[in-house]
């Protein structure tokens, strides 16, 4: 009887007061990230009204001229904005197409490695590029891929494989491939962490049963490992779709040169050139908000689609 009563108490609906009295230390702990998010994310939201002003920092909102929808109209009439938008979407989709499956494939390969020390060393080597800044990667890439004096072209020429240097970073078509593949190289190792974690949560008994049933290694990957990490992959995909409108200024600037302007001109460059460099903070804010809103919309749509397909989704 006493045991039954205790169970009832354990699952009885609680009140805020009771919950706080019991776990106040935990609530205090969560207060820190909560305050940080409120201060650094939500507290900045009133700044979005900058879009409707010709905002001058020294004059503040009171002294700056209210221009209504003028900034929005200017941006949507600007051909350069649409070029930047087109390039951003194109490159983010390509980044997604190349960059999204790579960590999964790599995680599957790493998972199959049986010699622990080799596996750990390999993992560490694969993670390292993630910690290099784009400025360093860009600089290294130019040293390697310059048309005449880059090490790669010199080696290829010395082996008689090419006559003229390949313009890896100075001609739009070649630049696109090099730019995308370097991003895959930089991010794939780091991306495996979450999938390797998901793989470890798959029960070992499933693999044992499959082995007893005669499943080979490929069949075990296909029928156990992949379905086991599917929900993680869907979550990651939804999160990546939210970044379709994103744009990394550091990466673009590090790989930029006058020969590839037509491809390099993406939203981050647009925001810098037409916003920040000209002290036009209203325009920079407007494009930033546009990116965020479209990103949010894509996440919501992707989440709904995922749920309709029977997945857990993100929201």
């Amino acid at each position: 009887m006493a045991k039954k009563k205790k169970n009832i108490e354990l699952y009885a609906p609680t009140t805020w007061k009771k919950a706080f009295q019991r776990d106040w230390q935990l609530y205090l702990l969560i207060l820190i990230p909560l305050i940080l998010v409120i201060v650094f994310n939500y507290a900045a939201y009133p700044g979005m009204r900058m879009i409707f002003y010709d905002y001058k920092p020294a004059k503040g909102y009171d002294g700056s001229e209210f221009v209504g929808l003028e900034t929005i109209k200017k941006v949507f009439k600007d051909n350069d904005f649409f070029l930047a938008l087109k390039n951003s979407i194109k490159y983010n989709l390509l980044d997604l197409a190349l960059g999204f499956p790579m960590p999964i494939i790599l995680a599957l390969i790493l998972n199959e490695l049986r010699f622990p020390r080799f596996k750990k060393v390999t993992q560490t080597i694969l993670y390292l590029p993630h910690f290099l800044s784009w400025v360093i990667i860009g600089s290294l890439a130019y040293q390697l891929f310059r048309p005449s004096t880059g090490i790669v072209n010199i080696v290829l020429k010395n082996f008689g494989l090419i006559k003229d240097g390949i313009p890896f970073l100075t001609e739009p078509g070649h630049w696109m491939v090099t730019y995308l593949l370097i991003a895959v190289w930089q991010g794939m190792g780091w991306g495996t962490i979450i999938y390797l974690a998901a793989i470890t949560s798959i029960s070992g008994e499933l693999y044992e049963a499959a082995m007893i049933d005669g499943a080979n290694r490929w069949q075990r990957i296909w029928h156990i490992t992949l379905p086991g990490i599917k929900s993680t992959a869907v979550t990651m995909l939804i999160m990546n779709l939210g970044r379709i409108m994103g744009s990394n200024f550091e990466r673009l600037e590090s790989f930029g040169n006058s020969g590839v302007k037509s491809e390099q001109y993406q939203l981050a460059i647009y925001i810098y050139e037409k916003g920040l460099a000209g002290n036009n903070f209203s325009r920079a804010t407007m494009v930033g908000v546009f990116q965020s809103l479209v990103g949010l919309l894509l996440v919501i749509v992707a989440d709904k689609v995922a749920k309709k397909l029977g997945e857990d989704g993100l929201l």
Partner: protein
Amino acid sequence: MKKRNLQRFGATLLMGVMALGTLTGCGSKDSDDAGSGNMKNEVAGMEGWSKFDEQVTLQIPVYNRGVADLDSVSDNGYTKYVQENFGNKYNIKMEFIPITRSDVMTDYALLASTKNLPTFLMEYDYPKVTQWAADGYLQTIDLDVFANIAPTYYNRMVAQNQLAYTKINYDTYFVLAERPYYDTTYTYCTFVRMDWLEQVGITEVPKSYADYCTAMDKIIEAGIAEHPAGGTMVTAAYVANFGFRNYPVSGEDWAMHSSLSTPSFSWEPTKKLIKRANSEYNKGYTDPEYYITDAETAKAKFINGETYSYGGYMSATVDWLDSFYAANPDAKLAIASNYGGVEAGVQEFPQIRADNPYGMTIGFSSSATDDEIKAAMMYMEWCTQPDVLYTLQHSDWNNYNNSKDFWCVTIESVKAATIEEAIKAIAPQGLPQDFAQQMIDNYYELRKIADAGHAYTDPAFAAVVNAESEYNATLMSKYVEYYDKLVMCDPAEFDKLYEQYSKEYLEAGYQAIIDERLALYKDGKSTKLPWDK
């Protein structure tokens, strides 16, 4: 129980401190009390100054050039000297605010947005300071008050005809520092490989473009360097097309195109300049990878003995010359002639861009109090006193020797009794070759060009050119793209491409800029050319 209570108290305290720390980071500087009303003293000049009753904080911007091995911009020998000898005497707390040299506008914008602008703002480029005036960064100045507090500084401005630059739309916003010998650019020298020239049988530096091309051809032919002219990517809006301009250039063309802030693409002299660059590229003088070569790489190429020439501002210590001689101990350098670009029908005689007839343009922050502004004016006057200026310019303080960033508030370079003495003070020391005499000869060559009226500067507008802030960054980016395409194109296609790109450039905003500049020029809101006055 006691232990648990102590733990709870500790946790609560920690949370509280962290939360408070987060929130206090969002605070802004309290503004000082209102000013002291009438700023004029009964006695003009330093004799009339007295100690402030309450301590005044004077914030001074100093360029941070990102040079390694220097003490902090805000705490070094200079700052200590100024605090001890000026600040303490007048109850002024001196604070030196670092400003990133390569990103001045962004730094000031960030300071403005947090209401933390230094007491005064200063910059070399006139369009930037006019922009600050228009955007509310600055307050107007009563020049009578300035003359009362800083008479030495003010009288110098009058003597050097600088008052025309103090106004924007009839309001006074600026005071201006001195720039000695501004029309000769003698502090910048281009060095060439004299040993290479001698190796190919040439005994003096080229004094015409034909001589220059002969030298390049011979150097390539002798296998000394593959692409001796080298080259770097375009990073500045300034187009060095003075030599390619008609003389005398028309006032309207000059007002529309002569600018440090927007590349003058679509203008005929710029076309001539790029056409020459195209010719040099196609003849192999220029490095085919010049457009992905930054300034540091170009410097390294000269040091490594891959290129014929390199230039820079002179001082007692020039790091790249030190490195050059360390790598090439037997090399011989010479200063290039200013006549090296002269070519019949293209560049009849050298013309150079004179500097502005003033150094720093200085305005006072719109959020500064009267006391702070008074302290700033006192500081400017104090720095102008010969004994103080001598100490500032000649003391060896913690690697900041001769750092003009601390005394540019009054003057731009060391002034001496004679130009020979001034040059000797900035001639590089400790090298296998002594360049002082060549620098003096170079000065007199430049002097001759200036005296012939062939050195003039860009217009300064007494109003903001609004289209510049709207389009400048975009136009700069387009110019780099077009310049490189034109330099690397087939010479037969050059004229057609220049015409096509010019049209695109004008449509991208340049037409709006030149229209606005021309209107201001016609309205009398700009300086004039020497021959139009």
